[in-house]
């Protein structure tokens, strides 16, 4: 090609780039969502909610997820990718609430607004805002429910099994666990740590990793430790479903064991209707995600940072107790009502 043709090409490319960058500078807001995995319906609902809100507000949206619950590396890369892509804000459900913090700081330094969803980071103020269920309160509700359901026996004849998620004690895991204990009337000592309690009613803690398989294995092991388990706390509804299979196999699926959980997914609510789960605390992931997108767009337009709910260090997106066996003094909704607002 002749020198003139090269020059013409160069000019054209330069104009194109200039045009694109100016176009970028105007209002092309990119919001990123990073969840723990993309298999858990909770996160699927979050993604849907965020995506819809983004479309409604006319902003760009990208979703990322780790390969498994606990996969920090993929989330780190996702944050870095979003920084490089010029995102205005990140919504993140952290798999490892401590390890992700340095990367979050990088994002904040680059001017992005980081909002933690569902799982607070450690320390909580590593993110500029947290939109979450009050997981402690969620645990408290089901713990209270279990205590009131047992009545007088709760103090003397209770044998409580705990099926948590991970050995590494992520915030959401600890919060729900300790909340349940407080609601049930167990002295939790340090609310930031699980396992430091010495109440004789505790049969043990097993790690189920939030899946049915883990729930089954964990329940079996706890039954082996003490066959008289009559209260079960599970971190989420898939775990509860697995635990139920173990109870069934042990001949204890006759209603003599109170199974509690947290989440409020539609399969979980149906399990409440079927008597598999006694009570579950419903969360609102769609609300979390759409509020989060709104907040990022607001921040991109006029720099406002969302304020936490009154009296809390985070924005509470609410929790409702779902049970078909309501107890006096504790507000709850039935499974039928819950089916209308459940997710997944």
């Amino acid at each position, binding site marked *: 090609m002749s020198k003139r043709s090269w020059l013409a090409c160069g000019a054209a490319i330069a104009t194109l780039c200039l045009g694109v960058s100016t176009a970028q500078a105007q209002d092309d807001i990119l919001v990123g969502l990073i969840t723990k995995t993309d*298999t858990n319906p909770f996160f699927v609902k979050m993604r849907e909610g965020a995506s819809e809100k983004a479309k409604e507000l006319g902003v760009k949206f990208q979703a990322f997820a780790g390969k498994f619950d606990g996969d920090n590396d993929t989330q780190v890369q996702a944050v870095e990718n979003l920084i490089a892509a010029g995102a205005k804000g990140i919504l993140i459900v952290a798999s490892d609430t401590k390890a992700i913090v340095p990367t979050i700081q990088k994002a904040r330094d680059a001017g992005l607004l980081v909002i933690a969803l569902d799982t607070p980071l450690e320390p909580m103020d590593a993110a500029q805002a947290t939109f979450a269920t009050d997981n402690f309160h969620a645990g408290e509700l089901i713990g209270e429910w279990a205590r009131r359901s047992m009545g007088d026996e709760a103090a003397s004849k209770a044998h409580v099994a705990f099926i948590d998620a991970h050995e590494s004690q992520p915030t959401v895991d600890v919060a729900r666990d300790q909340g349940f204990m407080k609601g049930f009337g167990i002295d939790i000592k340090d609310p930031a740590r699980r396992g430091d309690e010495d109440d004789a009613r505790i049969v043990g803690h097993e790690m189920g990793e939030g899946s049915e*398989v883990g729930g089954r294995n964990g329940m079996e092991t706890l039954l082996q430790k003490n066959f008289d388990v009559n209260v079960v706390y599970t971190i989420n509804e898939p775990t509860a*479903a697995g635990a139920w299979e173990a109870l069934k196999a042990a001949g204890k699926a006759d209603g003599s064991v109170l199974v509690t959980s947290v989440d409020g997914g539609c399969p979980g609510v149906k399990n409440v209707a079927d008597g598999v789960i006694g009570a579950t605390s419903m969360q609102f992931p769609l609300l979390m995600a759409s509020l989060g997108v709104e907040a990022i767009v607001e921040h991109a337009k006029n720099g406002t940072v969302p304020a936490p709910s009154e009296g809390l260090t985070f924005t509470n997106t609410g929790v409702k107790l779902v049970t078909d066996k309501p107890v006096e003094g504790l507000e709850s909704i039935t499974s039928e009502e819950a089916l209308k607002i459940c997710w997944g």
Partner: protein
Amino acid sequence: MSSDDTPHFSEHAGPGRRVINFLHGNPTIIPFLVLVIGLAIFSLIVGKRFFHPFNLSLVLQQVTVIGMLALAQTLIILTAGIDLSVGAIMVLSSVAMGQMALTLGLPPEIALLAGIAVGAACGALNGLLITWLRLPPFIVTLGTWSIFNAFVQFWSGGQTIRQQEIAADAAILQWTGTALQLGAWRLTLGSVLMLGLAGLLWYMLNRTAYGRHIYAVGNDPEAARLSGISTRRVLFSVYLIAGAICGLAGWVLIGRIGAVSPLGGGSANLDSITAVVIGGTSLFGGRGSILGTLIGALIVGFFRNGLALAGLDVLWQEFSIGCLIIMAVGFDQWLRRISN
């Protein structure tokens, strides 16, 4: 020529040499001893709660799913390969069965067979990529692991099909969860299926020419080729069979958890490799046994169960499994080295 001139090779093996030769021929002795010693120690520490038929059969149930994956993995590792996608194939097969029976409305028996066929197809894909494109098994199955997981997500839409729905419309999918009471022992049909499959594979590996060829291809592919064995055909068929076994494992998984769930199976591939390695099968191919894998799976199950009942934290389970793996591989290496 007189008979003194006929050549002969003297064979005066000392006692040390004889022990080594014995171990060479029967490498499964070591994992078996580890299992027995482990059972003894936990019985002492935990007591009757551990060494009771109910608990022992419980552990058998708990290791059944991983055990089936480990059987598939054994065949592959014997050919000096490895399969990181076994867990994903299993979950994909179970999702296929569930979705075909409940969402697509196929007759449950057809859905069951089709699900197993999906597993076989995944295995065939692995086999094709490895034999045709001659790519290393580790890399291939690393890739197909992600690909199959993506299909799981796609096909299930992230949804779990609940136990009650399956019980209502496709109960056969939960058949492997049916319990069998034999005296104080409580087995599931899934465990029986696994043991039966193990027996079948044992027969195939030890009593048929095909089994000998699998060992030969893993131990010395050049020698196998020069003996007229089609190494490509052997390798492809092994991956295909393994995929079908993973499909069967998907059926057993549904029986165990009652539901069809896209969760789970995450670390199943590594767990299956753990069982195979602790059972004495060499990652370098050509050495190992089905019995060893069963023992390896049981060792992992009993250690987890025993340590949990002894009240120790979950992290000690991980620690001990890690130690067992290293000891097993170290022992295999030592055996190989002193034979040269």
